[in-house]
């Protein structure tokens, strides 16, 4: 690119855009054609965006977006790319202005799971708890399958308690219609996770099965009790059982590799440490969320334990967990040291595939290559009856206003898919509260437990 500009610059012909055809190579001719086409496009776009670039250039003290575009414009003009960058600049400013509108050269990849911009207004009467919860989701304050499910259920408890059945209606029928707009408000903030979906399905089942003759307050209390039981049984206690099962797989001297941050993996590691096992942890992390940093903080800030008296001798307190932190590209050099890989999951599908944070598939496949056992810790309520074959059909992009890319250029658009799919062949075993199972046999669990569905 730089070489190309130099050939065009020095000749200083009065019309530099029309050098003789013979003097240009085929690539240069194509460039010229592109430039002309882009200039025409820019002409069409100029009346649309005439105000915004001018206004933004006039206000140097405004926010990052116009500063970025003017800075980028200066950079591009110095590189003498002329009208081509200008036409890309106007789509750039259009993108900076309104993240939701499509740009003239919109990328078709991943366009099917771009979030529509969450409207500022609240349509209909949404409960204040749900409004606040939706903001927590869209601002990524509450992130993670377990956290979102617990938060949703707690918010629904408040909604149910504040609900009164209108006359000529029954709770079992009307509460469902009352909850539907609340649920869609949450979905508009962030797509629903499998855990939330399963929990809400269970809640709807409970609501439709509630007794008509029961007084309203009792019915509401019973529903709240059922919600508490669900959280306790299928998340908290399930986590404790998984901790016990997984801890048995951790021995002294192990090097455990984990990826990003999973609430259950964190619990497993901390409980193994409390049991007195001496192991070390490698935390592998990746942008943009950098959740591994929080896991590192949690693992290294274990509360100090006092000296213990054991059989007439004073034992020193155990040292804190030795941790290594690395980004994903460093994985190949660290995988050789790991003895076990423990991963978390967002959901588990009927074909045994694990849907988890983007990068998990890499870790699992690399571990498989180096014959390191891969354990996925997953509660049974994360199971989904669907079949998933790749991470492209259903995914989610991290919003760019919360996780801005470090390299800002007007012709560079950053996409951060949040999830990816790990094939069952890379996974050694799945640790659930019903035991260690191979990944492809989740569909046999309900039958084993004597239930109709999960």
């Amino acid at each position, binding site marked *: 690119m730089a070489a190309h500009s130099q050939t065009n610059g020095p000749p200083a012909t009065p019309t530099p855009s029309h050098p003789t055809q013979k003097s240009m190579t085929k690539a240069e001719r194509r460039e010229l054609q592109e430039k002309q086409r882009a200039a025409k496009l820019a002409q069409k776009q100029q009346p649309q965006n005439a105000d915004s670039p001018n206004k933004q250039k006039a206000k140097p003290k405004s926010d990052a977006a116009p500063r970025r575009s003017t800075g980028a414009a200066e950079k591009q003009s110095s590189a003498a790319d002329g009208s081509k960058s200008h036409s890309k600049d106007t789509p750039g400013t259009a993108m900076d202005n309104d993240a939701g509108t499509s740009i003239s050269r919109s990328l078709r990849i991943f366009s099917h799971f771009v979030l529509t911009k969450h409207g500022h207004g609240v349509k209909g009467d949404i409960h*204040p708890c749900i409004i606040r*919860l939706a903001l927590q989701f869209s601002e990524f304050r509450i992130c993670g399958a377990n956290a979102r499910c617990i938060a949703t259920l707690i918010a629904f408890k408040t909604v149910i308690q504040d609900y009164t059945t209108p006359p000529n209606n029954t709770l079992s029928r009307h509460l469902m219609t009352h909850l539907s707009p609340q649920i869609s408000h949450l979905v508009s903030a962030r797509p629903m996770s499998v855990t939330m979906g399963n929990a809400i399905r269970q809640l709807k089942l409970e609501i439709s099965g509630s007794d008509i003759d029961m007084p309203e307050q009792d019915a509401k209390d019973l529903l709240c009790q059922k919600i508490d039981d669900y959280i306790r049984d299928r998340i908290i206690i399930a986590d404790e059982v998984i901790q016990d099962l997984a801890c048995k797989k951790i021995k002294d001297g192990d090097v455990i590799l984990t990826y990003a941050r999973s609430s259950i993996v964190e619990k497993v590691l901390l409980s193994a440490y409390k049991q007195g096992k001496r192991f070390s942890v490698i935390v592998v992390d990746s942008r943009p969320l950098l959740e591994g940093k929080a896991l590192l903080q949690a693992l290294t800030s274990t509360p100090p334990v006092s000296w213990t008296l054991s059989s007439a001798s004073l034992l020193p307190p155990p040292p804190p967990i030795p941790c290594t932190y690395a980004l994903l590209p460093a994985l190949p050099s660290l995988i050789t040291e790991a003895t076990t890989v423990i991963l978390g999951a967002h959901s588990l599908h009927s074909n045994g595939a694990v849907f988890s944070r983007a990068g998990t598939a890499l870790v699992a496949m690399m571990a498989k290559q180096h014959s390191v056992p891969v354990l996925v810790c997953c509660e049974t309520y994360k199971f989904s009856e669907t079949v998933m074959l790749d991470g492209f059909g259903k995914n989610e992009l991290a919003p760019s206003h919360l996780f801005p890319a470090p390299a800002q250029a007007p012709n560079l658009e950053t996409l951060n898919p949040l999830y990816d799919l790990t094939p069952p062949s890379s996974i050694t075993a799945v640790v659930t509260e019903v035991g260690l199972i191979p990944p492809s046999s989740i569909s046999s669990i309900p039958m084993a437990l004597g239930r109709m569905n999960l």
Partner: protein
Amino acid sequence: MLEMDIQRDLVPQEFLAVILAGFGNELSPLTSDHGDEPCLKALLPVANTPLIDYPLSWLEQSGIKDVLLICPAIHRPALSHHIHSHPNSLLHIDIQSYEETPDSAVGTCTLLRHFAGRISRDFVLLPCDFIPPPSLSLISILNKFRTDTVSDGLIATTCWFTASKTDKTVIPDEWGHIAPPVSIVWDKPSTTLLYVDTPDDLDRNSEEVELRMSMLSRYPRSSLSSNQQDSHVYVCKRSVLDVLQEKHHFDSFREEFLPWLCKVQYQRAKREKYEHILSSSTNTSQSQALRHSTLSSKSKAQQAPHVHKSKSTATSAPQSPIPSDPNIDPHPSLRVGLHMHRNGIAARVNNIHSFLEMNRHFLTSASYSLPTDPTQRALIDQKAQISSDTIVGESTQVDERTSIKKSVIGKHCTIGKMVKIVGSVLLDHCVVADGAKLDGCILGKNTVVGAKAELVRCITQPGYEVDPGENVKNEKLEISDWTAGAVGDSDSDSEDE
């Protein structure tokens, strides 16, 4: 209508807006009594819209439906009349009055303590004189409050805007000086308000700003700013009122209580005393979800004591284990948030300078055109020259060869022939006789300006009458001057704050 009431019962309203309408002593003589009738600051028109309509329409846009309007008892009939003359508004306004006089005005904290029983949820405290810029939406401030209150333990959010510089040539010193904006210290990354200078602090030490080390160790990268002005828009949790009940000696919310509230998060004594009131750990808080969340960021405050302890007790005597109770809240921060607004001009119209400036600001976007209604148009003479950056109210009569430039003329005014009005604000029902010249003046309601009078940069009290042929410059004209005999007494002693 019955269904709508039921709909409201199903979902409780999230916020209650509390609007405080005071006397507006700094806007006198515009808010002085007109005869026996009080002139309300809340109904003072800016660009021919009553001042209180600006925050009310702002609230409507944000979706808040319930409003509690607190005003002095003598203002209540006028306000009530104004509210009821807008039946299509979506707001449900409850007017409550308090006995007070302009001389012994009651502080805002006292009002809130008195009416705390009517406030049962999180509330937004607004003044009646805040004009928000179109680029600032109350929803953005509310969203900040909603997000941080759940995930962080925020107790209140404030809104600050850049104070505009006053133009000395436009506003003479006789009109009084305004207090400069207070200095504030705030933390940019977490948008936390850390310190607000109070008049007491200024009295104690006017040259230095004293800051606590505990604040600086928590927020080492804070910024100090002295050109930010408080919009008096506070979004607060209900528990803030409970704390206010305990502090009886505070009188002004903005000057005394808010600076005190900013200090609770980092001053240990205050924190220990009020933490249990301010942090609500009900069974509906999202503490369990936050503990499971993968992106929760603990505040640095929690980390510091832990790190300190582990370093110092590496090889020392045995220490007691710290109980880790899984049911306690993850340490709420109890901080006061801050929304800094930089684009667009906002103002609090509580003194003459900002009143004039907001009028001028609305004139820049005004474009005058002759009224379409034929009866109205008949009132305005063909030979009158009205420039495009003026606002003329309805039913105003303008006679021939009058020129009006860059001014706001109220409703039902009568302007005579050959009058020159430049850069002035005339409120409703003014009468300007032939040949008068007004330059940079503010005329209160029902002012009568005699023929061939010349007023330059004057303010008149409502109902004042300027004698014909008078020549007044840079003065405040009040009715009490007539009784005093000497016309042209300028008093500038009611300005301090």
